[in-house]
């Protein structure tokens, strides 16, 4: 068991974790054990391990130093846009185009943050951190486990952040020395998202909207290239949501 130091008192990693939890913990909420949080994050761990290592390896192939790979993962923490930007590192696009594509691809994060904003956190810093580390996978895991308290949310987000950063660095350093014989492991992230989708479909409140979202997105992705499909889907889904909210309120 690892030992951390808090002031002059050595703390075991478990008690250090409890201290960390208590920083963000409100009295009305019940803490989720760390092991349970680890078990909730395993699909993301496996998915990030596969994609993160592939990303690190490809960054190495493009001549980016290891600290560059780590910097991208630590400061951007956006798998889809990082993967997309791999090509731009070698063949840069005009800056306006790069900015526009990056904003379009990341626009969906506004809705995740909007949803998570309803959960109060103790300090402004922890709030900023939980929003910065809100990825597709973190958001989906939180939607599937709505009982999690604010400290558990922070720990889970941090775990996901560390998985991604660690995996990209590992992929960069190990490079082609590591060969994985199993194919199809990358499906774990699709499985995570599809499982969340099935939960929405089987819920009486959201079944129709979830199905509409899938159909609109599927049609867009079938007929359009990636960035255009993403943009059209997001605009259509947003428009449809606004209509539904407006009809209900009026």
């Amino acid at each position, binding site marked *: 068991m690892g030992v951390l130091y808090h002031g002059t008192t050595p703390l075991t990693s478990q008690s250090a974790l409890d201290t960390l939890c208590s920083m963000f913990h409100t009295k009305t909420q019940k803490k989720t054990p760390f092991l349970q949080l680890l078990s909730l994050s395993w699909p993301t761990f496996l998915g990030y391990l596969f994609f993160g290592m592939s990303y690190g390896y490809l960054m190495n192939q493009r001549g980016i130093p290891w600290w560059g790979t780590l910097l991208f993962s630590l400061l951007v923490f956006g798998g889809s846009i990082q993967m997309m930007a791999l090509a731009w590192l070698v063949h840069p696009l005009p800056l306006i185009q790069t900015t526009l594509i990056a904003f379009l691809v990341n626009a969906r994060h506004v*809705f995740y943050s*909007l949803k998570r904003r309803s959960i109060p956190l103790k300090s402004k810093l922890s709030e900023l951190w939980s929003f910065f580390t809100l990825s597709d996978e973190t958001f989906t895991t939180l939607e599937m486990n709505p009982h999690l308290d604010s400290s558990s949310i922070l720990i889970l987000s941090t775990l996901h952040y560390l998985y991604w950063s660690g995996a990209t660095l590992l992929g960069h350093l190990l490079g082609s020395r590591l060969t994985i014989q199993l194919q*199809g492991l990358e499906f774990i992230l*699709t*499985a995570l998202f599809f499982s969340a989708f099935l939960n929405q479909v089987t819920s009486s409140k*959201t079944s129709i909207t979830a199905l509409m979202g899938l*159909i609109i997105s599927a049609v867009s992705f079938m007929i359009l290239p990636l960035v255009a499909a993403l943009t059209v889907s997001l605009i259509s889904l947003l428009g449809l*949501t606004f209509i539904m909210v407006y009809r209900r309120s009026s």
Partner: protein
Amino acid sequence: MNQSQWMILIILIVSTSVPRLLPLMMSKDTLLSSQLQHFNTIMPAMLSGLLVMIALPSSFFDQWASPELMGLGFMICLHFMFKKNMVTMLGGTLLVVILKTWF
């Protein structure tokens, strides 16, 4: 890293941070409005389908009997049989791994 790579890094940092942190600037009154509460119920359900599409490989629509399609079908069966997210995810992924590795 060269200058254009640093520029790309900065653009990516801004483009990922701004959408994530934008809702922090909203007032409490706006957040408590009934329209936004309803919006927060509908939007994640709408986005769940989009996320599935983003995560699927681009070759998904090129072939009809792809391992991914079978994996999704198997996941639907598992979801209705067991109603356990972990079983659904693990079962679907195992099937895709088996189909892609050995067939």
